[in-house]
Protein backbone atom coordinates (compact mmCIF):
# COMPACT_ATOMS: atom_id res chain seq x y z
CA UNK A 1 0.00 0.00 0.00
CA UNK A 2 3.04 2.23 0.07
CA UNK A 3 4.33 4.32 -2.83
CA UNK A 4 7.30 3.38 -4.94
CA UNK A 5 10.06 2.13 -2.75
CA UNK A 6 12.82 4.58 -3.70
CA UNK A 7 10.57 7.62 -3.16
CA UNK A 8 9.21 6.21 0.06
CA UNK A 9 12.64 5.60 1.51
CA UNK A 10 13.77 9.11 0.79
CA UNK A 11 10.67 10.99 1.75
CA UNK A 12 9.25 8.92 4.55
CA UNK A 13 11.09 10.58 7.47
CA UNK A 14 10.27 14.01 6.10
CA UNK A 15 6.59 13.34 5.48
CA UNK A 16 6.26 11.53 8.77
CA UNK A 17 7.35 14.64 10.63
CA UNK A 18 4.59 16.47 8.86
CA UNK A 19 2.16 13.68 9.55
CA UNK A 20 2.51 13.82 13.30
CA UNK A 21 1.38 17.41 13.27
CA UNK A 22 -0.85 17.62 10.26
CA UNK A 23 -1.92 14.00 10.06
CA UNK A 24 -4.62 14.23 12.67
CA UNK A 25 -6.30 17.22 11.10
CA UNK A 26 -5.66 16.78 7.37
CA UNK A 27 -5.68 13.08 6.72
CA UNK A 28 -7.45 13.26 3.38
CA UNK A 29 -4.39 13.31 1.17
CA UNK A 30 -2.49 10.74 3.24
CA UNK A 31 -5.49 8.46 3.44
CA UNK A 32 -3.88 5.72 1.45
CA UNK A 33 -0.46 5.89 3.00
CA UNK A 34 -1.14 6.55 6.67
CA UNK A 35 -2.27 3.26 8.26
CA UNK A 36 -4.23 4.61 11.27
CA UNK A 37 -6.59 6.43 8.89
CA UNK A 38 -6.98 3.57 6.48
CA UNK A 39 -10.71 2.88 6.78
CA UNK A 40 -10.33 -0.52 5.14
CA UNK A 41 -8.85 -1.88 8.35
CA UNK A 42 -11.61 -0.47 10.59
CA UNK A 43 -14.12 -3.35 10.49
CA UNK A 44 -11.51 -5.91 11.36
CA UNK A 45 -10.08 -3.83 14.19
CA UNK A 46 -13.48 -3.02 15.65
CA UNK A 47 -14.58 -6.65 15.50
CA UNK A 48 -11.44 -8.04 17.09
CA UNK A 49 -11.35 -5.28 19.68
CA UNK A 50 -14.94 -6.02 20.66
CA UNK A 51 -14.23 -9.75 20.87
CA UNK A 52 -11.00 -9.44 22.85
CA UNK A 53 -12.22 -6.66 25.12
CA UNK A 54 -15.47 -8.48 25.86
CA UNK A 55 -13.53 -11.62 26.81
CA UNK A 56 -11.12 -9.56 28.91
CA UNK A 57 -14.01 -7.75 30.64
CA UNK A 58 -15.79 -11.00 31.44
CA UNK A 59 -12.64 -12.67 32.70
CA UNK A 60 -11.80 -9.73 34.98
CA UNK A 61 -15.36 -9.38 36.21
CA UNK A 62 -15.97 -13.08 36.85
CA UNK A 63 -12.57 -14.35 37.94
CA UNK A 64 -9.94 -11.76 38.71
CA UNK A 65 -11.84 -9.02 40.48
CA UNK A 66 -13.77 -11.28 42.88
CA UNK A 67 -10.49 -12.94 43.72
CA UNK A 68 -8.56 -9.72 44.41
CA UNK A 69 -11.56 -8.27 46.25
CA UNK A 70 -11.67 -11.44 48.32
CA UNK A 71 -7.98 -11.26 49.16
CA UNK A 72 -8.30 -7.65 50.29
CA UNK A 73 -11.48 -8.36 52.27
CA UNK A 74 -9.91 -11.32 54.03
CA UNK A 75 -6.91 -9.20 54.92
CA UNK A 76 -9.07 -6.35 56.19
CA UNK A 77 -11.14 -8.82 58.23
CA UNK A 78 -7.99 -10.27 59.68
CA UNK A 79 -6.69 -6.83 60.56
CA UNK A 80 -9.98 -5.86 62.22
CA UNK A 81 -9.99 -9.16 64.07
CA UNK A 82 -6.45 -8.64 65.28
CA UNK A 83 -7.25 -5.09 66.31
CA UNK A 84 -10.31 -6.34 68.20
CA UNK A 85 -8.21 -8.98 69.89
CA UNK A 86 -5.61 -6.38 70.84
CA UNK A 87 -8.34 -4.07 72.15
CA UNK A 88 -9.81 -6.91 74.21
CA UNK A 89 -6.43 -7.76 75.69
CA UNK A 90 -5.84 -4.12 76.46
CA UNK A 91 -9.24 -3.97 78.18
CA UNK A 92 -8.32 -6.98 80.27
CA UNK A 93 -5.01 -5.44 81.22
CA UNK A 94 -6.75 -2.18 82.12
CA UNK A 95 -9.27 -4.07 84.27
CA UNK A 96 -6.45 -5.88 86.07
CA UNK A 97 -4.69 -2.59 86.73
CA UNK A 98 -7.94 -1.06 88.01
CA UNK A 99 -8.58 -4.05 90.30
CA UNK A 100 -5.06 -3.85 91.62
CA UNK A 101 -5.36 -0.15 92.26
CA UNK A 102 -8.69 -0.60 94.00
CA UNK A 103 -7.25 -3.27 96.24
CA UNK A 104 -4.31 -1.09 97.00
CA UNK A 105 -6.61 1.79 97.91
CA UNK A 106 -8.69 -0.50 100.11
CA UNK A 107 -5.61 -1.81 101.90
CA UNK A 108 -4.43 1.75 102.42
CA UNK A 109 -7.80 2.73 103.85
CA UNK A 110 -7.77 -0.28 106.15
CA UNK A 111 -4.25 0.52 107.32
CA UNK A 112 -5.29 4.09 108.00
CA UNK A 113 -8.33 2.95 109.96
CA UNK A 114 -6.23 0.60 112.09
CA UNK A 115 -3.71 3.36 112.73
CA UNK A 116 -6.48 5.78 113.63
CA UNK A 117 -8.08 3.29 115.99
CA UNK A 118 -4.80 2.53 117.69
CA UNK A 119 -3.95 6.17 118.15
CA UNK A 120 -7.45 6.91 119.45
CA UNK A 121 -7.27 4.03 121.91
CA UNK A 122 -3.87 5.19 123.09
CA UNK A 123 -5.15 8.70 123.47
CA UNK A 124 -8.19 7.55 125.45
CA UNK A 125 -6.00 5.40 127.66
CA UNK A 126 -3.64 8.29 128.33
CA UNK A 127 -6.59 10.56 129.06
CA UNK A 128 -8.13 8.19 131.58
CA UNK A 129 -4.80 7.65 133.29
CA UNK A 130 -4.26 11.38 133.44
CA UNK A 131 -7.77 11.93 134.86
CA UNK A 132 -7.24 9.25 137.51
CA UNK A 133 -3.93 10.76 138.51
CA UNK A 134 -5.39 14.21 138.55
CA UNK A 135 -8.26 13.06 140.75
CA UNK A 136 -5.85 11.39 143.12
CA UNK A 137 -3.70 14.47 143.29
CA UNK A 138 -6.79 16.59 143.86
CA UNK A 139 -7.79 14.36 146.73
CA UNK A 140 -4.35 14.47 148.27
CA UNK A 141 -4.23 18.21 147.85
CA UNK A 142 -7.61 18.53 149.52
CA UNK A 143 -6.46 16.36 152.44
CA UNK A 144 -3.27 18.31 152.76
CA UNK A 145 -5.16 21.58 152.74
CA UNK A 146 -7.58 20.29 155.34
CA UNK A 147 -4.74 19.16 157.59
CA UNK A 148 -2.98 22.50 157.13
CA UNK A 149 -6.18 24.30 158.03
CA UNK A 150 -6.70 22.20 161.15
CA UNK A 151 -3.06 22.62 162.16
CA UNK A 152 -3.41 26.33 161.56
CA UNK A 153 -6.61 26.52 163.58
CA UNK A 154 -4.99 24.57 166.41
CA UNK A 155 -1.95 26.78 166.21
CA UNK A 156 -4.06 29.90 166.26
CA UNK A 157 -5.91 28.61 169.27
CA UNK A 158 -2.61 27.90 170.97
CA UNK A 159 -1.37 31.35 170.05
CA UNK A 160 -4.36 32.77 172.01
CA UNK A 161 -3.53 30.75 175.15
CA UNK A 162 0.21 31.64 174.85
CA UNK A 163 -0.74 35.31 174.55
CA UNK A 164 -3.08 35.05 177.57
CA UNK A 165 -0.37 33.26 179.56
CA UNK A 166 2.25 35.80 178.54
CA UNK A 167 -0.09 38.71 179.27
CA UNK A 168 -0.97 37.40 182.68
CA UNK A 169 2.70 36.81 183.43
CA UNK A 170 3.58 40.32 182.25
CA UNK A 171 0.69 41.88 184.19
CA UNK A 172 1.59 39.92 187.34
CA UNK A 173 5.19 41.01 187.02
CA UNK A 174 4.30 44.63 186.45
CA UNK A 175 1.29 45.05 188.63
CA UNK A 176 1.60 42.15 190.98
CA UNK A 177 -1.27 40.26 192.47
CA UNK A 178 -3.65 38.03 190.93
CA UNK A 179 -5.05 38.59 187.51
CA UNK A 180 -8.47 37.79 186.28
CA UNK A 181 -8.26 35.13 183.67
CA UNK A 182 -11.46 36.08 181.86
CA UNK A 183 -10.50 39.76 181.72
CA UNK A 184 -7.13 38.97 180.13
CA UNK A 185 -8.65 36.61 177.61
CA UNK A 186 -11.12 39.35 176.48
CA UNK A 187 -8.31 41.89 176.25
CA UNK A 188 -6.15 39.56 174.15
CA UNK A 189 -9.06 38.80 171.93
CA UNK A 190 -9.76 42.48 171.27
CA UNK A 191 -6.08 43.16 170.65
CA UNK A 192 -5.56 40.33 168.20
CA UNK A 193 -8.66 41.12 166.22
Amino acid at each position, binding site marked *: *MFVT*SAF*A*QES*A*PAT*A*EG*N*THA*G*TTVPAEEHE*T*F*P*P*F*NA*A*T*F*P*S*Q*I*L*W*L*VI*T*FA*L*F*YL*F*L*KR*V*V*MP*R*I*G*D*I*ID*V*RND*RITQDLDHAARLKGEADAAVAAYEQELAEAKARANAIGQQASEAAKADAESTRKKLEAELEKKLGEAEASIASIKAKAMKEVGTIAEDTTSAIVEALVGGKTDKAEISAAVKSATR
Partner: protein
Amino acid sequence: MAADKVDPIHQFQIHPIIPLHIGGYDVSFTNSALFMVVTIVVASAFLYMSTASRALIPGRLQSVSEMAYEFVGNMLRDAAGKQGMQFFPLVFSLFMFVLVANLIGLFPYFFTVTSHIIVTFTLAALVIGTVIVYGFAKHGFGFLKLFVPHGVPGYLLPLVVAIEVVSFVSRPVSLSVRLFANMLAGHITLKVFSGFVVSLSALGAVGIAGSVLPLAMAVALSALEMLVAFLQAYVFAVLTCMYLNDALHPSH
Protein backbone atom coordinates in the same frame (compact mmCIF):
# COMPACT_ATOMS: atom_id res chain seq x y z
CA MET B 1 15.45 -3.92 4.89
CA ALA B 2 17.54 -1.17 6.49
CA ALA B 3 15.32 1.41 4.87
CA ASP B 4 12.25 0.06 6.64
CA LYS B 5 13.84 0.79 9.99
CA VAL B 6 14.05 4.42 9.05
CA ASP B 7 10.44 4.51 7.90
CA PRO B 8 8.56 5.54 11.06
CA ILE B 9 5.14 4.78 9.61
CA HIS B 10 5.89 1.17 8.81
CA GLN B 11 5.27 0.10 12.40
CA PHE B 12 1.64 1.17 12.18
CA GLN B 13 0.84 -0.87 9.09
CA ILE B 14 -1.75 -3.56 9.41
CA HIS B 15 -1.41 -6.78 7.50
CA PRO B 16 -3.67 -9.80 7.66
CA ILE B 17 -2.45 -12.99 9.26
CA ILE B 18 -5.57 -15.06 8.67
CA PRO B 19 -7.68 -13.50 5.88
CA LEU B 20 -11.36 -13.46 6.71
CA HIS B 21 -14.31 -11.85 4.95
CA ILE B 22 -17.80 -11.72 6.37
CA GLY B 23 -20.68 -10.00 4.55
CA GLY B 24 -18.41 -8.00 2.31
CA TYR B 25 -16.32 -6.70 5.19
CA ASP B 26 -12.67 -7.49 5.61
CA VAL B 27 -12.48 -8.80 9.15
CA SER B 28 -9.20 -10.64 8.80
CA PHE B 29 -7.25 -11.64 11.87
CA THR B 30 -4.47 -9.09 11.54
CA ASN B 31 -1.33 -8.23 13.46
CA SER B 32 -3.49 -5.67 15.29
CA ALA B 33 -5.92 -8.41 16.34
CA LEU B 34 -2.98 -10.60 17.31
CA PHE B 35 -1.67 -7.94 19.66
CA MET B 36 -5.12 -7.39 21.11
CA VAL B 37 -5.11 -11.07 21.95
CA VAL B 38 -1.58 -10.80 23.31
CA THR B 39 -2.65 -7.81 25.42
CA ILE B 40 -5.59 -9.56 27.05
CA VAL B 41 -3.67 -12.79 27.50
CA VAL B 42 -0.72 -11.02 29.16
CA ALA B 43 -2.94 -8.86 31.35
CA SER B 44 -5.23 -11.75 32.34
CA ALA B 45 -2.36 -14.12 32.95
CA PHE B 46 -0.55 -11.59 35.10
CA LEU B 47 -3.61 -10.76 37.18
CA TYR B 48 -4.62 -14.41 37.45
CA MET B 49 -1.25 -15.92 38.26
CA SER B 50 0.01 -13.19 40.57
CA THR B 51 -3.05 -13.65 42.79
CA ALA B 52 -3.15 -17.45 42.55
CA SER B 53 -1.70 -18.02 46.02
CA ARG B 54 -4.19 -15.58 47.62
CA ALA B 55 -1.48 -14.75 50.12
CA LEU B 56 -2.44 -12.83 53.22
CA ILE B 57 0.89 -11.05 53.04
CA PRO B 58 1.25 -10.35 49.33
CA GLY B 59 4.40 -10.98 47.32
CA ARG B 60 5.68 -8.41 44.84
CA LEU B 61 3.57 -9.49 41.91
CA GLN B 62 0.43 -9.86 44.00
CA SER B 63 1.11 -6.38 45.41
CA VAL B 64 1.19 -5.00 41.88
CA SER B 65 -2.17 -6.59 41.06
CA GLU B 66 -3.69 -5.38 44.31
CA MET B 67 -2.27 -1.90 43.81
CA ALA B 68 -3.77 -1.69 40.33
CA TYR B 69 -7.10 -2.91 41.71
CA GLU B 70 -7.18 -0.47 44.60
CA PHE B 71 -5.78 2.36 42.50
CA VAL B 72 -8.63 2.10 40.01
CA GLY B 73 -11.12 1.42 42.80
CA ASN B 74 -10.16 4.56 44.71
CA MET B 75 -10.11 6.58 41.51
CA LEU B 76 -13.67 5.54 40.71
CA ARG B 77 -14.89 6.00 44.29
CA ASP B 78 -13.41 9.50 44.49
CA ALA B 79 -14.88 10.56 41.15
CA ALA B 80 -18.29 8.86 41.14
CA GLY B 81 -18.93 7.88 44.75
CA LYS B 82 -20.11 4.53 46.12
CA GLN B 83 -22.79 4.22 43.44
CA GLY B 84 -20.11 4.37 40.78
CA MET B 85 -18.60 1.10 41.99
CA GLN B 86 -21.01 -0.85 39.79
CA PHE B 87 -18.81 0.30 36.88
CA PHE B 88 -15.65 -0.92 38.58
CA PRO B 89 -15.19 -3.94 36.27
CA LEU B 90 -15.57 -1.71 33.21
CA VAL B 91 -13.11 0.93 34.37
CA PHE B 92 -10.64 -1.66 35.61
CA SER B 93 -10.73 -3.57 32.32
CA LEU B 94 -10.32 -0.35 30.34
CA PHE B 95 -7.39 0.74 32.49
CA MET B 96 -5.64 -2.63 32.33
CA PHE B 97 -6.30 -3.05 28.61
CA VAL B 98 -4.95 0.38 27.69
CA LEU B 99 -2.02 0.13 30.09
CA VAL B 100 -0.91 -3.31 28.93
CA ALA B 101 -1.47 -2.46 25.25
CA ASN B 102 0.64 0.68 25.66
CA LEU B 103 3.41 -1.17 27.49
CA ILE B 104 3.50 -4.06 25.02
CA GLY B 105 3.76 -1.53 22.20
CA LEU B 106 7.06 -0.35 23.65
CA PHE B 107 8.80 -3.61 22.74
CA PRO B 108 10.68 -3.34 19.44
CA TYR B 109 8.87 -4.94 16.49
CA PHE B 110 5.66 -5.13 18.51
CA PHE B 111 2.48 -3.58 17.26
CA THR B 112 0.84 -0.87 19.36
CA VAL B 113 -2.89 -1.49 19.43
CA THR B 114 -3.67 1.92 20.92
CA SER B 115 -1.82 3.78 18.15
CA HIS B 116 -4.86 3.30 15.91
CA ILE B 117 -7.61 5.88 16.20
CA ILE B 118 -10.33 3.35 15.51
CA VAL B 119 -9.29 1.28 18.54
CA THR B 120 -9.18 4.21 20.93
CA PHE B 121 -12.38 5.59 19.44
CA THR B 122 -14.17 2.30 19.92
CA LEU B 123 -13.11 2.26 23.58
CA ALA B 124 -14.21 5.90 23.98
CA ALA B 125 -17.52 5.10 22.28
CA LEU B 126 -17.99 2.25 24.75
CA VAL B 127 -17.51 4.69 27.63
CA ILE B 128 -19.82 7.37 26.23
CA GLY B 129 -22.33 4.72 25.17
CA THR B 130 -22.39 3.40 28.72
CA VAL B 131 -22.84 6.92 30.06
CA ILE B 132 -25.74 7.67 27.70
CA VAL B 133 -27.51 4.32 28.09
CA TYR B 134 -27.14 4.24 31.85
CA GLY B 135 -27.98 7.95 32.18
CA PHE B 136 -31.27 7.63 30.30
CA ALA B 137 -32.11 4.28 31.93
CA LYS B 138 -31.64 5.68 35.42
CA HIS B 139 -32.88 9.26 35.08
CA GLY B 140 -35.06 9.16 31.95
CA PHE B 141 -35.24 12.63 30.48
CA GLY B 142 -33.81 13.95 33.74
CA PHE B 143 -30.47 12.96 32.26
CA LEU B 144 -30.77 15.99 29.97
CA LYS B 145 -30.31 18.18 33.05
CA LEU B 146 -26.66 17.43 32.42
CA PHE B 147 -26.78 20.15 29.78
CA VAL B 148 -28.52 22.71 31.99
CA PRO B 149 -26.25 23.84 34.82
CA HIS B 150 -27.85 25.27 37.95
CA GLY B 151 -27.89 28.98 38.68
CA VAL B 152 -27.42 30.22 35.14
CA PRO B 153 -29.56 33.25 34.25
CA GLY B 154 -32.25 32.57 31.66
CA TYR B 155 -30.89 34.78 28.91
CA LEU B 156 -27.53 32.94 29.05
CA LEU B 157 -29.16 29.52 29.02
CA PRO B 158 -29.23 28.90 25.24
CA LEU B 159 -25.55 29.71 24.97
CA VAL B 160 -24.57 27.61 28.00
CA VAL B 161 -26.66 24.66 26.85
CA ALA B 162 -25.07 24.85 23.41
CA ILE B 163 -21.61 24.86 24.99
CA GLU B 164 -22.49 21.92 27.25
CA VAL B 165 -23.82 19.92 24.31
CA VAL B 166 -20.71 20.61 22.25
CA SER B 167 -18.46 19.67 25.16
CA PHE B 168 -20.39 16.44 25.70
CA VAL B 169 -20.23 15.53 22.02
CA SER B 170 -16.51 16.26 21.86
CA ARG B 171 -15.79 13.97 24.80
CA PRO B 172 -15.43 10.71 22.86
CA VAL B 173 -13.32 12.54 20.30
CA SER B 174 -10.97 14.08 22.84
CA LEU B 175 -10.81 10.86 24.84
CA SER B 176 -9.82 8.79 21.82
CA VAL B 177 -7.60 11.35 20.06
CA ARG B 178 -5.61 12.03 23.24
CA LEU B 179 -4.61 8.40 23.66
CA PHE B 180 -4.14 7.73 19.97
CA ALA B 181 -2.05 10.85 19.32
CA ASN B 182 0.17 10.29 22.34
CA MET B 183 0.99 6.73 21.36
CA LEU B 184 1.39 7.57 17.69
CA ALA B 185 3.64 10.58 18.23
CA GLY B 186 5.71 8.80 20.85
CA HIS B 187 6.37 5.82 18.62
CA ILE B 188 7.15 7.97 15.59
CA THR B 189 9.68 10.05 17.54
CA LEU B 190 11.28 6.92 18.95
CA LYS B 191 11.51 5.45 15.50
CA VAL B 192 12.92 8.64 13.98
CA PHE B 193 15.68 8.92 16.57
CA SER B 194 16.49 5.23 16.30
CA GLY B 195 16.57 5.70 12.53
CA PHE B 196 19.11 8.50 12.95
CA VAL B 197 21.36 6.12 14.87
CA VAL B 198 21.22 3.59 12.03
CA SER B 199 21.75 6.04 9.17
CA LEU B 200 24.49 8.02 10.99
CA SER B 201 26.49 4.91 11.85
CA ALA B 202 26.46 4.00 8.17
CA LEU B 203 28.58 7.12 7.52
CA GLY B 204 31.76 5.74 9.10
CA ALA B 205 33.69 6.69 12.22
CA VAL B 206 32.42 10.28 12.46
CA GLY B 207 28.88 9.06 12.00
CA ILE B 208 29.22 6.46 14.73
CA ALA B 209 30.53 9.13 17.11
CA GLY B 210 27.70 11.42 16.08
CA SER B 211 25.09 8.75 16.55
CA VAL B 212 25.67 8.78 20.29
CA LEU B 213 23.41 11.82 20.58
CA PRO B 214 20.29 10.34 18.94
CA LEU B 215 20.97 7.09 20.80
CA ALA B 216 20.91 8.93 24.12
CA MET B 217 17.77 10.68 22.94
CA ALA B 218 16.15 7.34 22.05
CA VAL B 219 17.00 5.98 25.51
CA ALA B 220 15.54 9.04 27.21
CA LEU B 221 12.46 8.87 25.01
CA SER B 222 11.97 5.21 25.87
CA ALA B 223 11.85 6.17 29.54
CA LEU B 224 9.44 8.97 28.74
CA GLU B 225 7.27 6.61 26.73
CA MET B 226 7.05 4.27 29.72
CA LEU B 227 5.68 7.19 31.71
CA VAL B 228 3.34 8.20 28.89
CA ALA B 229 2.09 4.60 28.58
CA PHE B 230 1.04 4.63 32.23
CA LEU B 231 -0.11 8.23 32.23
CA GLN B 232 -2.40 7.83 29.22
CA ALA B 233 -3.98 4.72 30.71
CA TYR B 234 -4.50 6.67 33.92
CA VAL B 235 -5.96 9.69 32.11
CA PHE B 236 -8.27 7.45 30.11
CA ALA B 237 -9.51 5.77 33.29
CA VAL B 238 -9.89 9.05 35.22
CA LEU B 239 -11.90 10.67 32.45
CA THR B 240 -14.03 7.54 32.21
CA CYS B 241 -14.74 7.85 35.93
CA MET B 242 -15.72 11.49 35.57
CA TYR B 243 -18.03 10.82 32.63
CA LEU B 244 -19.64 7.96 34.54
CA ASN B 245 -20.17 10.37 37.41
CA ASP B 246 -22.22 12.50 35.01
CA ALA B 247 -24.38 9.48 34.24
CA LEU B 248 -24.95 8.91 37.95
CA HIS B 249 -25.47 12.54 38.96
CA PRO B 250 -26.56 14.50 35.88
CA SER B 251 -27.57 17.69 37.70
CA HIS B 252 -24.42 19.56 38.66
